[in-house]
């Protein structure tokens, strides 16, 4: 029983960065912009969170700064892909390379090392002091509740609000959206910047809550698993969250598996499943129609 609980808890902990990055990808791709730069935005977020936390002493400020850093990279991606209509994949890749460089660059510059301990962690200020909640909040990072909230909110934003309808229409048929007076560029910028914010948050979780330190390349492909979660979840928030939890479960199971099952095969599962849902005949995942195509207003 205890083992089951432990696996469940660690599944959720592993799943959070996947879910957040996957949600970020959902916003961006629903608006028609491919964002493979999630990984880079996450890495930058992870570094910024630790750097700002250590400088100010407040982990919440660190989280805010990480979100801001992610948004900044999202903005760059938007300028390159939406305004200049350049290749979205190359831009995303450039963001990944940029993040790998700039984080270590500043790590050397500011700390003279590439592994930096986070001075403080995220704590819920008032609830944490109530004894009844103390156990709850010290065992479970507050980011979990935040993530759950964001998942539910994203579902409503994307499927139940005017903004969501516009976001999706811009990703499915930009010409039609444009004729109805929706600014395609503005919607796409919004989508990409939200994706940056969520990825930055995923990074902050990773360094502040999950590892308690920043280290060179800490994101280690989690942005791509986020991408896989998004596809496996068919570009919906609940689907993405479910897929993220599934992949997190695989990760959590690793230490309990018998030796004959190599852990590397567990690592492959998200990617194999993604290829499978994209190519299978039944229950196939179809991306937004206008994805990856820059919109040129005639």
């Amino acid at each position, binding site marked *: 029983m205890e083992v089951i609980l432990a696996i469940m808890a660690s599944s959720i902990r592993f799943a959070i960065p996947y879910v957040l990055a996957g949600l970020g990808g959902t916003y961006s791709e629903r608006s028609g912009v*491919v964002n*493979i730069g999630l990984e880079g935005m996450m890495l930058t977020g992870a570094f910024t969170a630790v750097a700002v936390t250590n400088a100010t002493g407040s982990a919440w400020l660190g989280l805010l700064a990480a979100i801001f850093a992610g948004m900044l990279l999202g903005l*760059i991606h938007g300028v*390159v892909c939406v305004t*200049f*209509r*350049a*290749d979205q*994949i*190359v*831009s995303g*890749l*450039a*963001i*990944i*390379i*940029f993040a*790998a*460089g*700039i984080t*270590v*660059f*500043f790590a*050397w*510059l*500011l700390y*003279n090392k590439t592994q930096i301990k986070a001075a403080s962690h995220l704590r819920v200020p008032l609830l944490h002091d109530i004894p009844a909640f103390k156990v709850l909040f010290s065992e479970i990072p507050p980011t979990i509740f935040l993530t759950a909230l964001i998942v539910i909110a994203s579902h409503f934003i994307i499927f139940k609000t005017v903004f969501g309808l516009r976001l999706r229409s811009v990703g499915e048929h930009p010409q039609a959206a444009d004729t109805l007076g929706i600014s395609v560029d503005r919607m796409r910028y919004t989508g990409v910047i939200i994706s940056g914010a969520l990825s930055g948050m995923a990074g902050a979780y990773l360094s502040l809550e999950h590892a308690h330190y920043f280290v060179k390349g800490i994101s280690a*492909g989690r942005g*791509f698993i986020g*991408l*896989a979660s998004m*596809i496996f979840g068919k570009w919906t928030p609940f689907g993405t969250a479910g897929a993220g939890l599934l992949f997190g479960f695989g990760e959590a199971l690793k230490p309990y598996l018998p030796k004959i099952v*190599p852990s*590397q*095969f567990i*690592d*492959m599962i998200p*990617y*194999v499943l*993604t*290829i499978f849902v*994209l*190519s299978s005949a039944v229950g196939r995942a179809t*991306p937004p129609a206008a994805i*990856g195509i820059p919109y040129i207003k005639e």
Partner: protein
Amino acid sequence: MTAKLKLDRLFEFKTLLGIFSPIVAVVMAFVVGAIIILVFIKSFVLTESTFIRLAEKGVPAAVLESLQTLKGQEYPNRSAFGKDVRAAIGDQNYAQYGSLIKKQALIRENPLTVYNAIFTAALKDRDGWGNVLYRATPLIFTGLAVALAFQCGLFNIGGEGQMVMGGFAIAWIGFTFVKLPAFLLIPLCIIGGAVVGGLWGGIPGYLKARRGVHEVVTTIMLNWIAVAFTQYLTMAYKPEESWIPHTFEIAKSAQLSRLAHYLNPLGIDFPKSNLVNTAVFLAILAVIFAAYLLKRTKVGYEIRSVGFNPTAAECAGINVAKNTVLAMAISGAMAGLAGVNQVMGYKHRFRYGIFGGLGFDGIGVAFIGRNSPLGVVLAALLFGILDHGGLAIDVSTKVPREIILVLKAVILIFVVVSGEITKRLIKIIQKRQEANA
């Protein structure tokens, strides 16, 4: 006649811009890099000349005297320096002269010194050139891989996966068939790497052609599958006693010799430690093969037609599905060959660490080279210079070598952006010409 002339001129203009936009991108990246260096790389140090300047600005001798204790010490950040200065001269003096002292003690790194260090280390002598070639060799393979697929309208970002799969195959053949003589084993390794890389590249091609799955997503996913799979294989073929995650060593007969081995007997002075090896000739062959394939063969013509306009190609009787798979397979084979340099020429074992990132760098190389074989060579040399020269700046300057990654990323962004601007310019000129005609 006039219409044709105008078309010719347009074509010239296009090629000209095609050559200029990567150069502009590189220059812009160096400018951005210079700004980063100027803004962020600074230190505070009190030298003899700082004291003279401070005295000229009217700082009393008594204050300067108490500052002498800090002379020569280097501070990486402003607050630590300020704290020590405050302690040395007292709060009152600090309030009056603190900001002046900090301003005078500030030293910034000159970006030109940094760039000079990069290019000097890379190009000053044969050793530098050799190492640049060594670093450019795998990038030529992975760059060609991306460029070839791109000619077919496919974006292969799976170079990383195809490269490690091919690289492992090379190592496996190398340490399994140890009895074979070099003239059999070396070609076998090379063919093995190309075939396995090609098969791995063929999967996304097949999924695209038969199931309509976009190759970008599948290649990303296959990259990570390949990395995990080769990690598993590495552990399976790891020598018991080794704590490093690498495979057995390949047979002596499968190892490629370094160029020094051939150059020294000819009387050319070349350091034995230099890593450039005979794989560089295979890279040159690959470039010639790619250029010939694209421009002079039926296969190349079909691949380019599909890339230019798949619908038109289909109507002209070209099998789009077949060419999609074929282009991806050739592309994967090219990426698979990167292991010839890394495994047969350098480490003589398989280890993921010797590959990490070369596949992704290949994308940058292809785009900077505008997806032409010759362009790939030039771009690979540029990346080789940056990679090898970057090692020097850690030693000779205060700039961390990760600035190289930043430069590469910025080059990449500016290349695609300037490419788009070029396209728009050409369109505007075309419209004007049409209006005139």
